[in-house]
Every structure is written in C-alpha cells, then in structure tokens.
C-alpha cells in the first residue's frame, strides 16, 4: 500500500505563486519517513493534502490501502477539565490500554499522568498528545514537530519505541532536526527553497532501529546529502 504523489502543485488561494510545484515522490513501504526542509516551503501543506484537510491542489495522489490518515502537530492541547491520564483512558480504545500504560512509562510521563495538561512542560504536553494519536486506528500518521521541546535522548527513545511497536504502519515525521531524520528515517523528502528545481529531493536515511545501529561514516554521509539537498 504505497503512497504515491505525482506532480503535486499547491498555491494558497490568496497568493499568485505556488507554495510548491511538481513535487513527486513515493513511499513504497511502511516505516518512519520524513519531510525535512526550511520553514515555509510547504511541508505542513503537503501533509494536510495527504490527510485530506486541503482539497484544492493539482497533481495526482494515490494512497491505496492507507484508509485512515491522521495529522498531529505540536500546537495541540488536551482539554483542561481532567487529568492527562483520565483523558488518555477515555480517548484510547479499551483494547489498547495496556499499550497506553507502556507508552506512558517509556515516554517518561508516569510522574505527571495525574496532572492537568496545562501543568505539564511543553515537551510533556507533546508526548501526551502523541500517545493518544499513536493508539488510534490509523494507517498513516503524520507527526508535525510532534517531539518539539523534548530532549534529544528521550526523542530517540520515543522514535525507536514507535518503530518497534508499529512496524507495519506509515509515519511521516516533519522535523527541522537534520541529524534526527538522517538517523531514524527510512526516506527523507527534502524540501528546497522554491527558487530551486526540482523542489524536493528524496534521500535515503539510515533508518536505525536501536541506538548503536549505525556507523558514523554512513550517518555523516546521509547528513551531508540531506544538507546539500536543501
């Protein structure tokens, strides 16, 4: 069930110049993929096109088998009338409660699970938000800066946990951290400034599955390729 985008062009209704044009790429297998690039080049817009939140665009998009596509981002909030744990219990299906407890532990939220959302730090808020998305029924999850404000070590733990727990699902991770996407992602769609052609370049990532899994030379080469592509 690949995701295929063919010559995608998108222009905001109020503007004349396209945000991006002729973007083509394929995600042919499940795993952790990434959209990477500077701000304002269209990563979030493309993500919203994929999830169906934006309908006016040109080009073709095929998502055979990717029935449920969710978009999560780092500005989301949980309602403040109950504790985070109570909220997670309510929105996560009963069959997934064991996984919820496991993720709460791994994501480092055990100590603050009874707190209200606004009492959490920004990193904790993003982790709590991510847990509720991960345990829904979906085929493709887009994580738009979903681990912002989380420290590097915890981010690595979270990404490796996600990859281990959901090996047959598609992830698109939008991030500005070149090192992170180079290490953990299978493929990286690098967005370039819209003065450059082609506007996106697909780079193969290291796709590591545990902390010590990659040779420094390979990682350096990937990182260099990503940075040169921008």
């Amino acid at each position, binding site marked *: 069930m690949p995701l295929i985008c063919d010559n995608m062009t998108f222009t905001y209704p109020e503007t004349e110049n396209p945000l991006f044009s002729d973007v083509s790429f394929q995600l042919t297998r499940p795993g952790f993929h990434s959209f990477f690039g500077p701000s304002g080049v269209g990563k979030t817009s493309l993500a919203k096109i994929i999830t169906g939140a934006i309908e006016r665009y040109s080009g073709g998009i095929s998502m055979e088998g990717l029935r449920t596509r969710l978009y999560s981002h780092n500005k*989301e909030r949980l309602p403040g009338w109950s504790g985070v744990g109570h909220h997670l219990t309510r929105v996560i299906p009963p069959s997934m409660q064991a996984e919820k407890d496991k993720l709460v532990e791994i994501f480092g939220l055990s100590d603050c699970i009874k707190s209200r959302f606004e009492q959490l730090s920004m990193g904790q808020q993003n982790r709590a938000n991510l847990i509720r998305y991960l345990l829904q029924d979906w085929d493709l999850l887009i994580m738009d800066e979903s681990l912002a404000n989380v420290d590097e070590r915890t981010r690595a733990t979270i990404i490796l946990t996600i990859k281990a727990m959901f090996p047959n699902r598609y992830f698109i991770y939008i991030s500005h951290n070149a090192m992170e996407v180079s290490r953990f992602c299978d493929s990286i769609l690098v967005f370039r400034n819209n003065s450059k052609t082609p506007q996106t370049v697909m780079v193969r990532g290291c796709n590591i599955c545990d902390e010590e899994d990659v040779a420094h030379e390979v990682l350096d080469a990937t990182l260099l390729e990503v940075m040169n592509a921008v």
Partner: protein
Amino acid sequence: MLYRRVFQFFIIYFLFISGLMLLKYCLGLSDYVIPALSGMFQTLIAEYSQYSFATLNTMTVTVIGQVVSVIMAFVIGITGRQSTWFGSFIKVAAYNIQAYPIVALAPILFILLGDGFLTRLLIAAMICYFPVLLSVLGIVSKPVEDIEHFYRVTGRMRWQLEVKIRIFENLSQLTTVITGSATLAMAGTIVGEFIAADAGIGYRIRIALYQSDLAKVLIALFLIGITIAVYQALLELLGIAIKRAWTGR
C-alpha cells in the same frame, strides 16, 4: 470580592450624595428640591422596611428573569452555532432584534398581560437576554482548533463535546457576561415596574416621583445599588467556584 463591591458602591453613592449636597448649599436650594441629610435619614427610618421588601421583590423578579434569559440564550446560542441556514438565520435575527429597544415593547406587554409578575419577568428576561445570547453565540460558534482537531480527525467529535470545549475555554468571559447581565435584568425589571407594575422598587420610585419626594428616590437608589452589588459579587463568587472546580485551579 463581596466586601470590595459593597465598599465600591458606598464610595460611589456617598460621592453622589456629596455632590447633591454641594449643589444644594452652593445654589441655596430648598429641602423641597434636594432634601437635607437629616430629612433623608428620617425618610430612611420611615420607609426602610417597605422599600427593602420592594427591593427584594424586584430582585426576585431579576434573578428569575436572568436565569430564564441565560437558559434561553444557551439553548438558542447552541442551536444557532452551526454554519447551517438555520444557524445563520438565528444569528442574523439575534443581531437585528437586539438593536430594537426592548423597553419600547413594554407597554404592549402590559396591555396584553396586565401589570403583574409575569410582565415584569418577561421585560427583565428580554432586556438581559440579547447581550447574553450574542456572547454565547460568539463563544460557541468559534472553534478551538488546537483542542478540537484530535476529536474531529478521529471521528470522536459530538456536539455536546464541542460545546463543552468552547464553554470551558471561555469560562472567564462567560462569567463576566452573566455577571454584567445582572445589571441589565435589574434595570429591565425596574423600568417595567416604573412603567406600569403594581409592586417592586420601580413602582415605589414612581410613587415617590409623583410625590416629588427626592429623599425616597435616593433611599430607593441606595437599596437598589447595595442589592445589585451583593448579587453581582455572589455571581462572581459562583463563577470562581465553578471555574475552580472545573479547571482545578
């Protein structure tokens, strides 16, 4: 909060009385035009009981009228929040009708329903209903995207949840609007009583006006002010208690 509101009212009232006294003695006005402080005190002693009961009578109508109008505003506001034809119709109708002075309709109500309790209640409710409705409409029509997004994309959003989120996020604003509408409800009741009712402090003011007895009017104003100050403070305390219970802070 209760003490602060009452204290603020005392300051304003006594500044007002001081201004009147200044006017009286600067212009050499007689006690018939502006009564002396001793005359006002005697009137207070003489009319205190009767005027207090009249104020409580008015306050009862005010509270019931406000409760009715807040319930109506929420029902109509929640119904009209959607971007449907019916929702747009309710919004446009609410904006247009609220532009019309409700007090001007009061004589019609007195002619149709007489000068009893129901007419006063209707006028009070109508006067404070539209400002509350417009606020409720504004609050429940405006999406809280960063909270609602999850429920929408996962198909969990229900209208009850949508309303709950929006009210929760705007609780302070709603409390302020409802507290402020108490003054409108009181004003509506008094105006209604002043026009044609047979009870309440507005009715007493009308009699005092016919008797050209400014002391009675000033005593009535004092009782009205102190009552509404206490009522508003109680509403504010209620709002704080609800907010504390709901938000945990």
